[in-house]
């Protein structure tokens, strides 16, 4: 098992959002969390990546207890987080942003190899490498955020709503690039609003509601589940 989240409680200040959330991911899996707005999907990812401190429970990554470690140490352990807000460095160029993604890699040669890999994956970023991140379009920024997450060659990627606010065509692009990553052996945990699409590309899924895991199972089963169809797919 690559990641095991056991009875995780988390929230902001005194406000508890997550209640006893349990989930697991095996190496190489492509897993999703779906759920209504405000269910706590982003909070789950922030807790795993160390941006907020869990109030209780355990997070085990690669057999090691990482509960409560600061975010930079969790990144060094091999978990990359692509946040909903992207958190790009808007006054740096595309290339500088990508190089920042490889901050934990000190070897210049490996950095260059990673950069070439990302530019192959997203030729659009290669064309724009001298442009300031803050002047890019929404879709390009999403690509850049995903590319920056990839730069550290993570074992596990947490991707939060990559298609949020994108035109359908760009959404398609983003899903395709995630597919490429998944096929290249990266383990991915995806949070998405676009439930139909997400369940059709991932292996397994969790349904999060009000800070609790309601349902879990193979994505194809969830897509046919009566409750999911009624609540999320509106059929």
């Amino acid at each position, binding site marked *: 098992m690559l990641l095991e989240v056991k009875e995780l409680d988390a929230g902001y200040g005194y406000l508890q959002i997550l209640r006893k959330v349990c989930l697991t991911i095996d190496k190489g899996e492509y897993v999703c969390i779906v759920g209504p707005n405000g269910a706590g999907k982003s909070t789950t990812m922030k807790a795993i*990546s*160390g*941006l907020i401190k869990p109030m209780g429970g355990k997070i085990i990554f690669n057999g090691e207890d990482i509960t409560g470690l*600061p*975010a*930079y140490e969790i*990144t*060094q352990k091999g978990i*990359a*987080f692509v*946040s909903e*807000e*992207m*958190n*790009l*460095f*808007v*006054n*740096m160029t595309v290339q*500088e942003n990508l*190089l*920042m*993604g490889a*901050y*934990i890699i*000190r070897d210049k040669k490996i950095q260059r190899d990673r950069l070439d890999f990302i530019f192959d994956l997203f030729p659009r970023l290669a064309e724009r490498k001298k442009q300031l991140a803050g002047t890019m379009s929404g879709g390009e920024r999403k690509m850049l955020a995903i590319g*920056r*997450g990839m730069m*550290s060659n993570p074992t596990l990627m947490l991707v939060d709503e990559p298609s949020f606010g994108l035109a359908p065509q760009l959404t398609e692009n983003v899903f395709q690039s995630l597919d490429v990553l998944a096929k290249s052996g990266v383990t991915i945990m995806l949070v998405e609003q676009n439930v139909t699409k997400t369940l059709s590309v991932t292996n397994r899924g969790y349904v999060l509601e009000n800070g609790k895991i309601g349902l879990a199972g193979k994505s194809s089963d969830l897509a046919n589940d009566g409750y999911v169809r009624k609540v999320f797919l509106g059929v």
Partner: protein
Amino acid sequence: MMAMSEKFSLEFNLKAGENNFMSKNNKAFVGWIKSAPGITISGSIILAVFATIYSGPYILVNVIITGGMLALVATGLTLILGVLNIAMFAHGEYFMIGSLTAYYVFTPISNYVNENPDSILAITGPLIAIALSMISGAIAGVISEKIVFGPLRRRSTDNWVMNSFLLTVGLSVLLINLHQLIFGADFKGIVRYWGGMPTEIAGVFISRDRIMAFIISAFIVLVFWLFMTYTRTGRAIRAVSQDVTGAQIVGINIENIVLLTIALSCALSGVAGGSLLFMYPSYPTMGLEPLYMAWFVVILSGLGNILGAVVGAFMVALLKVMTVEYVGAGWDFVVPSILIMMVLIFKPSGIFGSEVRGVLDK
């Protein structure tokens, strides 16, 4: 300076076109505002050239010395603002600490050199004093972070901008009074660092100390700029100032960067105080003038814009020197203040835009 300014106006002209808040009948005015960097920089250069021709090259010398010093203080201020989100009003006190250190280190050295004129200390002594003023600035910065800012940040970041600002004001008062209590309120100055005959450059005689002061500040600003632009750590500092969460995500230890930033910034202020000891003797409230001048620079060039601060430092220095020359010595605060108010009203993001726009809104 010239080449750099040109690069700026190019860069910042590209970024123009985001100030659409003015109404249509102000179009011509907006057009002028949009090229503000170009106009101000070329205007400053023309002004400097005319003043030099009209009143003599010593004007230029004064501008360069004052500007170099201001650049050191203002880049530190801008860095602390960008990375720690603190409106720092104790920055002049690190300048004071630097000059105080230089005074107490250099005085015995100078006495020794008077008795042994052939000693190598005649040349290296001032450098030792100046280097130690830099180090003492850094240490004072680290101590402030450890016992003042760090604890506040860990306790609560609610209302951070206001609370941290008030803390810096308190810190400033505390340090000024500590100086007075321990070292007294009198002027602690030196006659010269290197001495010797003034050097003639293009018809003006400039003392060796002034030349060295400029070389030191130019060298430090250059090294600092290279560090910020090309090194891994320098990039990390910029990353933290642009997006703290993003910086954490890519694996940067924020606490380390914060500590390094405050140490660096205070070191820059300390070395400015140390290297100018021959012009400005050390006394408790000596830091207030460089502090206000540096704030003028930061507001003029845009909050958090490091490169802009260097150019802005020379502009404010020019303004100050020209005011003293043509308006009167008592006016050197009034004229820059009026200009700063105009900048705040008409171009609040500063003449060069802002690298960390919105940092104060968080």
